[in-house]
């Protein structure tokens, strides 16, 4: 295979740049690219494009990652032979809970328990404060004068009447007293 046309050359360029062509294919293409400026420009664009694919800074792997994963793997049970091929996913089996998630769950549970306990304490405290600050029946009376018995009241009324020079008032338990 000596000479190739542009229409044959163009589809081969990406594979050529990826090093996927045999020498039997690459040789004629190389010669074509030397002669054909438009195809050479296309190949240059392919080269330019691949220069965009640069890896960023390495990802920081947590220091204890491997030990955590190994521990989790062995805590999860014995190694068993799966029925599925390597490429298949396991849709039915739930994904293992990551160690970090388990730690977060423990912390969350602790915070939740703490919150419930705090809420209970606050509730009890509010009930106690409320009952202590509630006024008694006596404190709620409209008449705040000191209480007296009926006899004391009659005696006091008599005294007032005497001071006023009026006739004494009969006691309520003697309704006919003082009548003609």
């Amino acid at each position, binding site marked *: 295979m000596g000479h190739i046309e542009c229409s044959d050359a163009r589809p081969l360029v990406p594979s050529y740049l990826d090093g996927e062509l045999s020498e039997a294919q690459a040789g004629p293409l190389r010669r074509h690219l030397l002669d054909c400026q438009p195809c050479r420009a296309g190949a240059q664009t392919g080269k330019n494009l691949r220069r965009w694919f640069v890896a960023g800074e390495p990802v920081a792997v947590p220091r204890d990652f491997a030990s955590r*994963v190994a521990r989790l793997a062995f805590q999860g049970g014995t190694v068993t032979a799966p029925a599925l091929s390597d490429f298949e996913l396991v849709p039915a089996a739930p994904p293992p809970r990551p160690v970090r998630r388990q730690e977060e769950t423990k912390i969350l549970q602790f915070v939740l328990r703490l919150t419930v306990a705090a809420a209970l304490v606050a509730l009890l405290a509010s009930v106690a404060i409320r009952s202590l600050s509630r006024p008694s029946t006596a404190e709620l009376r409209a008449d705040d004068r000191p209480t007296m018995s009926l006899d004391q009241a009659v005696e006091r009324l008599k005294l007032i009447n005497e001071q006023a020079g009026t006739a004494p008032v009969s006691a309520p338990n003697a309704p006919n007293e003082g009548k003609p």
Partner: protein
Amino acid sequence: MEPRSAEDASLVQETLAGGQASFQLLVERYQDRLFALVRHYTKDPALIEDIVQETFLKAFRRLESFQHESSFYTWIYRIAVNTVLDVMKRRGRSPVTAMEDPELATGPAAVDTRVMAPDARLQREEIAGITHAVLAELPEIFRTVLVMREFEEMAYQDIADMLGISIGTVESRLFRARARFKEKLLQRHPEFGEGA
């Protein structure tokens, strides 16, 4: 068998025999590469860690099915890619729709558009940032082949084996993926178009 593969095979056997330390060594051997791989799909460090951890745990559960026909890394890489795609799907990040099937889509307008190499003044991290942002706009099916080819430098045959597709499909998918990448790159940064 290469020394590294032989060591991996031995670590696998020891793990199957109950050696937790051996499994830890396997994790240590490949954790960096898997973290780097998953970073192409998400920038969230917690999610990256979760996906890599899930990958290793899946590998552990299936360890007896590892037949040593491929390298341990190829085997676990395949699990990682599937785990990533599964997680992305669960999170609703699956832009491939029936309306826009990347395999059936007609050639993008930018196929013949020239694109320049990154400006020499750009820092490596800046280029990586731009590339990551553009990749994030691509359907996973395109992003996956680009990551495998451009970052992992995998051969077409390995990509085909990994994804269970033919070499012809790898070629066409890569062609479309690059065209789409170029299109999105120039949409975001028209200054990198030749003649701009």
